[in-house]
């Protein structure tokens, strides 16, 4: 049986997401079985740009509007500077041939990485399956994560 790697992606920063995908795709290319759990802010990475479902709850509705999702909306954890810093960093990444988060997601898919969305976060934030990108192949909770993490040689929280 191949070695396993489990990652929890809690944050929705561009830099942190990139680090997570680097490790995940690297491990998958080394023959490891990789699962990434996207929870809380991290779930924003897996959201479609446009929301599909509309929550009935008023606060959820407002929150979903403010808490924007989509891999294009991610900000740097440092030097975002109202978008200027993030914009410049994205350009630098492009110049250096570093894959974007979008490219990383399809790379992860091709390498057979398991992309899991946290169901509790979805409930809190009023996000439905149809709000998530098709790359997501599982919606699960803490028990699924723990059963995978228990057998994983590497387990990281980003």
């Amino acid at each position, binding site marked *: 049986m191949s070695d396993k790697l489990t990652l929890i992606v809690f944050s929705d920063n561009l830099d942190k997401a990139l680090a997570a995908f*680097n490790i995940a795709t690297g491990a998958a290319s080394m023959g490891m079985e990789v699962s990434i759990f996207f929870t809380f802010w991290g779930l924003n990475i897996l959201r479609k740009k446009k929301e599909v479902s509309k929550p009935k709850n008023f606060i959820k509705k407002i929150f979903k509007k403010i808490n924007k999702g989509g891999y294009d909306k991610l900000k740097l954890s440092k030097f975002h500077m109202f978008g200027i810093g993030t914009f410049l960093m994205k350009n630098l990444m492009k110049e250096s*041939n570093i894959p974007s988060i979008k490219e990383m997601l399809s790379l992860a898919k091709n390498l057979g990485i398991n992309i899991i969305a946290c169901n509790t976060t979805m409930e809190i934030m009023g996000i439905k399956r149809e709000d998530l990108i098709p790359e997501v192949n599982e919606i699960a909770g803490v028990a699924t994560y723990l059963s995978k993490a228990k057998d994983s040689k590497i387990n990281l929280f980003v």
Partner: protein
Amino acid sequence: MKADRTLDCYGLFCPMPIIKTGEMLKEMRKEEILEIISTDEGIEKDMPAWCEMTGNEFLGIEKEDEIIKVYVRKK
């Protein structure tokens, strides 16, 4: 060194060279040699580590200015 296939990873950074190497080796036959052309210095340490984990044989590197040529034998 003579190689059966060449993989161009010019200008690519970690983890792209190892991912592309993995993909390319899948298409190759056992005992064939793959040459990877890279400009990423990290590959000097990464490729032996990648080979150790995947069970392929790291044959060595050749450097020409900024170009690093890495050789791997598929096992």
